[in-house]
């Protein structure tokens, strides 16, 4: 059976530090404002008690990628393992994919005049290495999972700020934090 690789983002462990995002930016030497992975603040009352919570997302390597459908030159392919790959050599920079993606993942690189997005570091995966964000998260809060093998029962496929998964069937899943006890003055 083919694989269905996706990110599993553990919000309970995530400290919202952005090291995933910046290590990715550093490794790929991206332009300063390019963000292949981004960390977004979640509503404070996510789990009932008010906390600082963040979610880290990149390309969701969807089952039905809208970017692929929208691309007029066929620059997008979906690998057998589920990774959605964007070929910058074919890209004409029309930005249709960026508009089509419900998650706003493909970004325009103003220097190369091409679109750019997370590749799940497939070249690293292919030689037995982990994606940079997975390897470099100080809290080990991001993993790669083959969702055809196991769908973690403690994970969810949507969090606030994340678009309706029924549109493109993203593979990313999330582990929500458990609320702690709080004694607050206000």
């Amino acid at each position, binding site marked *: 059976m083919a694989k269905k690789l996706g990110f599993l983002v553990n919000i309970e462990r995530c400290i919202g530090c952005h090291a995933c995002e910046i290590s990715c930016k550093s490794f790929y030497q991206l332009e300063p404002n390019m963000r292949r992975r981004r960390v977004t603040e979640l509503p404070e009352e996510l789990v009932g008690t008010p906390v600082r919570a963040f979610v880290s997302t990149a390309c969701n390597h969807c089952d039905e990628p809208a970017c692929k459908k929208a691309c007029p030159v066929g620059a997008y392919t979906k690998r057998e393992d589920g990774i959605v790959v964007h070929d910058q050599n074919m890209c004409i920079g029309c930005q249709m994919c960026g508009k089509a993606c419900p998650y706003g993942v493909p970004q325009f690189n103003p220097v190369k005049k091409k679109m750019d997005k997370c590749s799940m570091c497939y070249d690293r995966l292919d030689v037995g290495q982990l994606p940079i964000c997975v390897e470099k998260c*100080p809290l080990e809060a991001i993993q790669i999972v083959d969702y055809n093998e196991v769908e973690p029962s403690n994970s969810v496929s949507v969090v606030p700020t994340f678009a309706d998964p029924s549109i493109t069937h993203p593979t990313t899943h999330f582990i929500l934090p458990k609320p702690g006890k709080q004694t607050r003055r206000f």
Partner: protein
Amino acid sequence: MLNETISRRTFIKGSVSLSALLGLGAAGTQAPKGLIPKAAAKTNGKVEQFYNACPRNCYDTCSILTTVEDGRITFITGNEKNTYTKGRLCVKGNTYPRVVYSPDRIKYPMRQKGRGSGNWERISWDEAYTIIAKKILEIKKEYGSTLPICLNKYSGNFNILNYATEGMLSSIGYTTRAQGTPCDPAGSDAQGFDMGVAYNNDPEQFLDADYIILWGANPSWTSAHSMYFIEEAKENGTKLVVIDPLITQTASKADEYIQVKASTDGALALGMIRYILDNQLYDKEWVNQNSIGFNEFFAYVKKNITLDWAAEKTGVPKPVIERIAREYATAKPANIWIGFGMQRHVNGGAMVRAIDALAAITGNIGKKGGGVNYIGGETWGFNYHTMSFGAPEGSGGEEDRFVNMNNFGAQVLAANEPPIKMMWIACRNPLAQDPEPTVVKKAFDQMDLVVTADLYMNQTVEYSDIVLPVTTPFESVGINVSYWHYWMNVNEQAIKPLYETKSDLEIAMGLSKKLNQIEPGSCTFPVSGDPLEWVEKELNNDIKALFGVKSWDDLRKNGGTAKANESITVAWNDLKFRTPSGKYEFYSKKAAQYGHHPLPVFTEEYKAPKEYPIRCMSPHWKFGIHSQFQHQDWLMAIQDHPFIEIHPDLAKTRSIKDGDIVKIINETGYMTLPAKITKMVPADTVVMYEGWWKGVNYTENFTVKALAEDMGEYKKGQRGIAFHDNFVNIEKA
């Protein structure tokens, strides 16, 4: 939604075996991590890797692995051989390639015509040295000593070789020095009175703790690598309690969060102690064998402290105090980490003494995984060779003169006979980081010459006469240790210095050469030398034995990082305290000598003045260490302006909505900035994070007075600043 029947740990374990299915099982063993796929594709490129050390004023002081392709850095990450860094850097460390190649680097020595005018002209190093050397000699002639020259240097770079700046100033004669620290002084005095010196357990021992209290510490933002060990401990069943006035990022991860009124933490500790004594939960044997003054302290607590008082004072309900006290006293070992922020109050030192006492009566001191952990200096036993040369013969004056770094502007202005006429600033940004920056600016106005060595055009450089461009860690050699973990990290030169930048050591040698050219014998600092030879001179036999290394070069060849001998990683394991009695001192005569109560008593907190009823705290921010990092465009792309956090209840009283521009004001100053409405702060407090945002012409210190902490003189020479006892009013702008 969340399925409670499968714990996250179970799942993570499951997914590790899954990685075999993914063909990832060999990750990290089959192929080395780092840049290999990219580098391999580039067959003509020369790929090298170097060890570096993050030298910033940070608990984590990481060991770094730097990849260089064709002379250019292409990736900077953590060194896997260091079990604390674990091959990963914090968000700030991940920006290092941009720190090096930032378009904002200062490239050449420059002279400014008109301080603050922005009218800079490029000059050569020779011209810069000549201007500075002539001014030094002129001052020496006019005043008969070099005391009018003031050095303000601190923690921007803790590479041991950077003490060359202090050494160079000592080598011209006696000078005036900014003394003390804005960091840890009150707490370090407190631990000094109690135990002789501040000394913390290895943070990797969080894994050995049964119970962890993070008391005013926010490692999620200030020590991400410690947070990993804390999260791992939680996974293994350790309870994490966070006590803090703010719902910090770390408080958000706690099993239990307790919101204490700011500056009453000592009352909470004393309330817990009362409960522990009343219920016979203390460690009688430990106290009898290892402490003095316990009876006096016990009597003080019985007479003066009640649970009702503690609850009233701290805002923490009595049943919560009782329960936490019982849990803490019965967990073995229980670990307390006291954050530096907790002691930045007028009663900060006394509060740390109370928390120390809590750890002592429960016998948690001297235990692996336990402790009352604050800061430590056990691994800093270098030679400090760069500071060993002394004043030249015939120097005027008898010794250096000190001004308090924490009230720098006022004390420079007050210095007389002789007045201060020249400043050398390195590894520091006083016009942004000091309280009362306007007073600091006035002190600058009195100077004939202000020289600043820095990487970027920050607020202090903008108000200097001469700027000397310095190297990043990747362009010079060095060695670093931490005040928290127990590793020593080598810093190799990975690339040639960019532009005309020089290290502080090279600057010291260059200036000495010029001084000796103009007036032979006027500076004792060596005029030349190989930095590799300088760094080897820092290691003595004791430190080599402690870390099991033969030399700096030996460590460079063997992984770039070494951990200290286990014998020192459990603080006070031998229970031989460095106090006058050799015991833990609940009753400290030394404290009394310094004008404090000899016992760990509660001293009153600073009260809000009527006109300025709102506390404004300025804790550390996740994208910066003081004024470093946040200004880089990689981080500005995430957060491009400062903001102030306001509780919705408080915001409502002023009709302030999220995103509104608000004015915060007190008798010291004011600023306007966007509001962020959030329940993460209490309704009597606003929070503005510390940092330098590029293009922003104010800092959190605009409203901060040079209000002294209660302690600091014993260990640091000067008291610290009660940064968090800052009171303001706010209004919609």
